[in-house]
């Protein structure tokens, strides 16, 4: 959102006026976006304040009036005591940081979010149940108290974990927020002092020099060649002069006010502080931005949806079976315990933690690829993005002027504009080029900063403006040591560029020792240069400049200008030695040398070229179904040219204007539908209703918004969101921050971005490169797919955990699996495997898919739930029951003897319960067997979860297509599962409270046939999905 313009370059027709008009235009327009953004309560208040602020009249006051108003003295400054008083009154001169949610609130949110509330209810029910038991029987067992405490422990642990993860990811960002404390040079008590900028108060007299940040809003009292960069405020990085004159009614436009947080580029300025802290212009914008609420991320919505589904299932099954249990004449207290068991079995306690870990793993991966994610959930948002509103400068382009084309010998040559310039292939044999290169080299004031011998040319720092830098680097690459050439051709005199002349001129001695002539070189606006020429050099020879050559010149000029490039003309003249002997003294004031009838040598055009990775990235976005919209403050022609060169406007699509031009008919007659692309300027946008904007956004595939003010960006973002799109917005200026916040995912530039932009954004691109967004999209989509797999994996075993309770209630079997054991699966064996799924590679090219529709493509859809619960889950339950029955049968309780055994089995006073063989069991012996049953059931689930883990690697492809061993982490997961299982059974088998026992080794293999069945069944499912896409099977079985 910045632009590099210089007044001389006439291609930029009326750019400045446009801007001025936009900015001048009523201020309501400027902040229209903010007004529209449905923040009714804050809006009015701010609007009024802002209006008031703009009525600031300090710029109109004279110095004495100012002194009076602020009770200060321009020479002596404030007194320290007065300053301290003011500081106490107004507070420190710093922006109030955006309101942070207090840590404790964040923590408590984690404690009650998601499933926690269910578990809390479970825990309290446990305690209440114990209380009731205790009141009737003092010796009631403490089991329920333990269970309740364990549930609370689980909630707290998962909460602490999620909080920790969250905190960790915010910490990455906090490094950004740490700014080096700024110092300010202030005059107080007639003394110059350096104090922290925070302590400035209104009325302070400050001095700022080139390179410093303006420490507050200041009214300029005196300045020396001061130019400021207002980009952090306006988005335009063009240096603007500052002096003490009052030049404009509008305080934002007048030259005698410098704004807080902008940068003084060169010169020095002395000014009086007129506003500090939040009362500065930037403070107002920042507070407006903080008013734009952060919307819920798509993944947060998905997770909420999923929690609702699972909690709904848990609660309704729980209540259903509570009613069944009561009507089966169970005691209400027992029924409550069943209810708790059902809830615990149904809630995937570890899942939300897993999701957090998965997201943070992806966030780390993205950080490596230069996408720093501030908000974990934003990781996925990028994947569901359907529209990217991208900046041009710096994001799509390299953010530096580069020579793109040359015109000499009646021919246009293309220069290499790639990042390193290495491949300059145009014909350099012509002697015209020799002359042109000499002019380029000599008529240039830019210089490399010293001490950069080992830095590649393109990366060297340069003193000089953007065009001169481009020319310097261009000639350095082609010709070698420019400084040496300049030394050999000693500069005698020069006229630097100024806006009235619109040219730059210098006179040099030549490096040819036999040639005593002086060489006059000149560059400038092409038509201006042409006026001064009478001859033109073609193939090294001077030809008179006639009409036809002038025409070819114009054709070339228009062509280059049409590419959106900044064109410069070059000419030279060898001054005759007799008229200008070596001793001749040139005087630039009297211009005692010719400046006309020169020899025209060539044209050279420059552009801020696209980054070489961008066209590819844009193509990828397009094939990924993501619409890339360019929003720039630059001129429409340049914007369109860049859009074309990076593919935002594809090669064969035309705008309405293009069609009109081609068919030679007025724009109004063109059928709007024929045009695929549109270039909309800020002026047009201003007059548009939101319906018209919607129409444009919906009808055109390729859109470029040019000449937009940063505020209009917000309108565009809102328009996109009305299309139900998930919008990503890139931005760097302070003024972008409302749009960044408004966007589903705001992307700030890490290098060029202001702190306010970074604060408002969800993500920071460390390399400012558009291509990094595409990798982000890829990661985001992958994580969405993988989260689906993780959830499917996790949900499956819930049925296997739930069925035991249902069977227990209905058929009266001894309880197959205990609540604590379930927790060991959910929070023990299953954790690492479900995280391992996050490392799964994409099944197919995820960048060839359309972005997901946020209302239709849910994270957890019906198919996923049905397939996990009713297919695999049920199989798993059967397999686990097989292990359970095996253990009981081999100990003497055959399956049929177990039915309706529950009451006797659990009766502490029945110590001679007969088994199938006539043996009699004491209660403890049965209890131990029951624990063995728990362990067996646990192992059964564990073994089948391994199969479940493997099948979840893919949703469509065969496991063998995906590769069984490509994702090594899966195997780590499986190993962890087995090891934890072994430890629980054999290591902690003797700890009664955990109710694990040492299971016979062979029971580990009982469920294997069912595990294999799961695998085979899923392979069959995937096979049919692949064979019959779109079929009934595909619709019902693909999740």
């Amino acid at each position, binding site marked *: 959102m910045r632009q590099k313009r210089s007044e001389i370059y006439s291609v930029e027709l009326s750019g400045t006026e446009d801007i001025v008009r936009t900015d001048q235009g009523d201020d309501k327009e400027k902040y229209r976006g903010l007004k529209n953004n449905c923040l009714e309560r804050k809006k009015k208040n701010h609007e009024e304040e802002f209006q008031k602020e703009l009525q600031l009249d300090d710029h109109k006051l004279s110095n004495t009036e100012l002194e009076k108003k602020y009770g200060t003295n321009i020479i002596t400054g404030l007194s320290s005591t007065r300053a301290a008083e003011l500081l106490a009154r107004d507070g420190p001169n710093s922006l109030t940081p955006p309101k942070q949610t207090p840590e404790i609130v964040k923590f408590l949110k984690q404690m009650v979010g998601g499933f926690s509330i269910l578990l809390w209810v479970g825990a309290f029910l446990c305690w209440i149940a114990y209380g009731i038991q205790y009141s009737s029987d003092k010796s009631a067992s403490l089991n329920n108290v333990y269970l309740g405490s364990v549930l609370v422990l689980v909630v707290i642990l998962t909460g602490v974990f999620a909080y920790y993860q969250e905190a960790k990811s915010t910490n990455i960002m906090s490094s950004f927020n740490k700014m080096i404390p700024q110092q300010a040079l202030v005059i107080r008590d007639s003394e110059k002092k350096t104090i922290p900028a925070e302590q400035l108060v209104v009325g302070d007299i400050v001095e700022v020099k080139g390179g410093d940040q303006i420490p507050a809003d200041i009214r300029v009292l005196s300045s020396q060649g001061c130019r400021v960069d207002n980009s952090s405020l306006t988005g335009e990085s063009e240096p603007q002069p500052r002096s003490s004159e009052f030049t404009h009614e509008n305080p934002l436009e007048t030259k005698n006010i410098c704004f807080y947080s902008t940068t003084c580029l060169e010169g020095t300025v002395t000014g009086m502080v007129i506003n500090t802290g939040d009362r500065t212009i930037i403070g107002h914008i920042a507070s407006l931005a903080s008013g734009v609420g952060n*919307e819920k991320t798509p993944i947060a919505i998905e997770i909420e949806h999923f929690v609702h589904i699972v909690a709904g299932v848990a609660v309704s099954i729980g209540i259903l079976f509570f009613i069944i249990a009561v009507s089966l004449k169970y005691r209400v207290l027992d029924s409550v315990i069943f209810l708790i068991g059902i809830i615990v079995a149904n809630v995937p306690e570890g899942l939300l933690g897993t999701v957090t870990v998965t997201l943070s793993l992806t966030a780390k991966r993205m950080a490596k690829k230069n996408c720093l994610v501030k908000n974990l959930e934003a990781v996925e948002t990028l994947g569901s993005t359907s529209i990217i509103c991208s900046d041009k400068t710096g994001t799509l382009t390299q953010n530096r002027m580069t020579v793109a084309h040359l015109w000499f010998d009646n021919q246009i040559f293309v220069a290499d504009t790639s990042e390193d310039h290495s491949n300059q292939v145009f014909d350099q044999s012509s002697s015209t080029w020799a002359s042109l290169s000499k002019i380029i080299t000599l008529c240039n004031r830019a210089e490399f900063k010293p001490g950069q011998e080992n830095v590649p040319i393109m990366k060297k720092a340069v003193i000089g403006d953007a065009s001169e830098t481009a020319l310097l680097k261009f000639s350095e690459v082609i010709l070698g040591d420019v400084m040496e050439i300049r030394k050999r051709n000693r500069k005698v005199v020069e006229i630097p560029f100024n806006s009235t002349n619109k040219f730059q001129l210098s006179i040099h001695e030549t490096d040819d020792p036999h040639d005593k002539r002086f060489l006059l070189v000149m560059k400038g606006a092409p038509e201006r240069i042409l006026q001064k020429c009478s001859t033109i050099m073609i193939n090294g020879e001077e030809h008179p400049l006639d009409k036809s050559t002038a025409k070819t010149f114009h054709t070339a000029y228009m062509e280059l200008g049409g590419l959106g490039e900044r064109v410069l003309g070059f000419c030279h003249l060898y001054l005759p030695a007799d008229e200008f002997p070596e001793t001749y003294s040139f005087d630039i004031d009297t211009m005692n040398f010719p400046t006309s009838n020169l020899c025209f040598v060539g044209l050279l055009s420059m552009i801020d070229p696209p980054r070489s990775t961008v066209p590819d990235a844009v193509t990828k976005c397009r094939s990924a179904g993501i619409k890339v919209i360019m929003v720039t403050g630059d001129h429409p022609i340049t914007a369109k040219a860049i859009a074309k060169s990076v593919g935002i406007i594809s090669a064969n699509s035309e705008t309405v204007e293009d069609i009109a031009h081609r068919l030679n008919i007025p724009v109004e007659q063109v059928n709007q539908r024929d045009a695929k692309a549109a270039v909309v300027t800020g002026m047009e946008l201003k007059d548009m209703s939101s319906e018209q904007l919607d129409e444009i956004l919906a009808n055109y595939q390729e859109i470029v918004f040019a000449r937009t003010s940063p505020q209009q960006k917000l309108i565009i973002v809102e328009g996109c969101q009305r299309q139900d799109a998930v919008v990503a917005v890139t931005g760097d200026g302070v003024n972008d921050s409302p749009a960044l916040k408004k966007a589903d995912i705001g992307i700030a530039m890490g290098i060029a971005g202001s702190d306010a932009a970074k604060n408002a954004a969800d993500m920071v691109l460390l390399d400012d490169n558009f291509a990094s967004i595409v990798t982000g999209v890829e990661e985001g989509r992958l994580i969405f797919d993988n989260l689906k797999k993780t959830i499917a994996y996790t949900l499956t075993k819930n049925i296997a955990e739930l069925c035991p309770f249902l069977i227990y209630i209905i058929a009266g079997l001894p309880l197959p699996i205990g609540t604590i054991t379930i927790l060991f699966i959910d929070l023990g064996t299953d954790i690492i495997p479900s995280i391992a799924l996050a490392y799964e590679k994409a099944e197919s090219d995820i960048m060839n898919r359309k972005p997901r529709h946020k209302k239709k493509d849910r994270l957890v859809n019906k198919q996923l739930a049905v397939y996990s619960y009713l297919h695999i889950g049920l199989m798993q339950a059967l397999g686990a029951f097989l292990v359970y029955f095996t253990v009981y049968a081999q100990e003497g309780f055959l399956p049929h003897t177990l039915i309706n055994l529950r009451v006797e089995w659990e009766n502490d006073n029945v*110590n001679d319960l007969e088994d199938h063989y006539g043996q009699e069991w004491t209660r403890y012996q049965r209890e131990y067997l029951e624990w063995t049953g728990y362990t067996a059931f646990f192992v059964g689930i564990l073994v089948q979860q391994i199969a479940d883990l493997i099948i979840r690697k893919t949703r469509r492809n065969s496991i063998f297509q995906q590769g069984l061993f490509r994702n090594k982490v899966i195997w780590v997961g499986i190993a962890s599962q087995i090891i934890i299982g072994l430890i629980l059974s054999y290591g902690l088998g003797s700890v009664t409270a955990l109710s694990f026992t040492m299971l016979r080794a062979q029971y580990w293999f009982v469920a294997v046939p069912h595990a294999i069945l799961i695998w085979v069944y899923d392979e069959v499912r995937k096979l049919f999905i692949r064979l019959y896409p779109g079929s009934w099977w595909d619709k019902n079985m693909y999740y």
Partner: protein
Amino acid sequence: MVIQKEKKSCGQVVEEWKEFVWNPRTHQFMGRTGTSWAFILLFYLIFYGFLTAMFSLTMWVMLQTVSDHTPKYQDRLATPGLMIRPKTENLDVIVNVSDTESWDQHVQKLNKFLEPYNDSIQAQKNDVCRPGRYYEQPDNGVLNYPKRACQFNRTQLGDCSGIGDPTHYGYSTGQPCVFIKMNRVINFYAGANQSMNVTCAGKRDEDAENLGHFVMFPANGNIDLMYFPYYGKKFHVNYTQPLVAVKFLNVTPNVEVNVECRINAANIATDDERDKFAGRVAFKLRINKT
């Protein structure tokens, strides 16, 4: 992203539900057409049929590993438990001497329990074995089935046999009989070839005082080795479990007495911390007299 929370009126919600249940336009019932429902039901019929078959098959295979006569593993039953008769809700024998109803149910239970021990039945079904040694009936390669059991005659219980007993096992006089039995465990050689007996005592000192005197039948509470080993319900069809009867002669009335009986046998530990019934049994005795 602005989520337009469309506020739906109650009527709309009902309407939507109605349409979900039956959509007359598309002829969809609960979001599916008839054919779709048929398809899905057929699918689940086949699928669950298959699962049932698969589960049954694996269960059948599993049951093949289990013998019908002896359990595969007995690791949990190393120490047989002890139990009392009459079997009461909370292992307590409470007798209100004057209130016939309070002990009549015990008596009924005992009558029923002791019926198979009647001498006539024993003589008819079981062998007279040599006391003092295990009555082993090895298979020797051929299934030796059914196995014979040794007689335990009701008369061996003496005063507690309840035969022609007007006091109803002493319950009507406040001198109740409690029968101790040891849990059956297949192939368990109780006592490890040495004689064993059951002893009873008050759990704590005051219990011992309150307990008073008691007599045991058979004498000393002996359990003979000939009743072991047990070969299981299928093989040992008429197996008669040996009993020890304890007749409490002068329990302090109106006091709850905690009695603990344990078996003294070489290979039965009676000090298991966790299993309170391993080789022992504790019960409460209370005689209420007015």
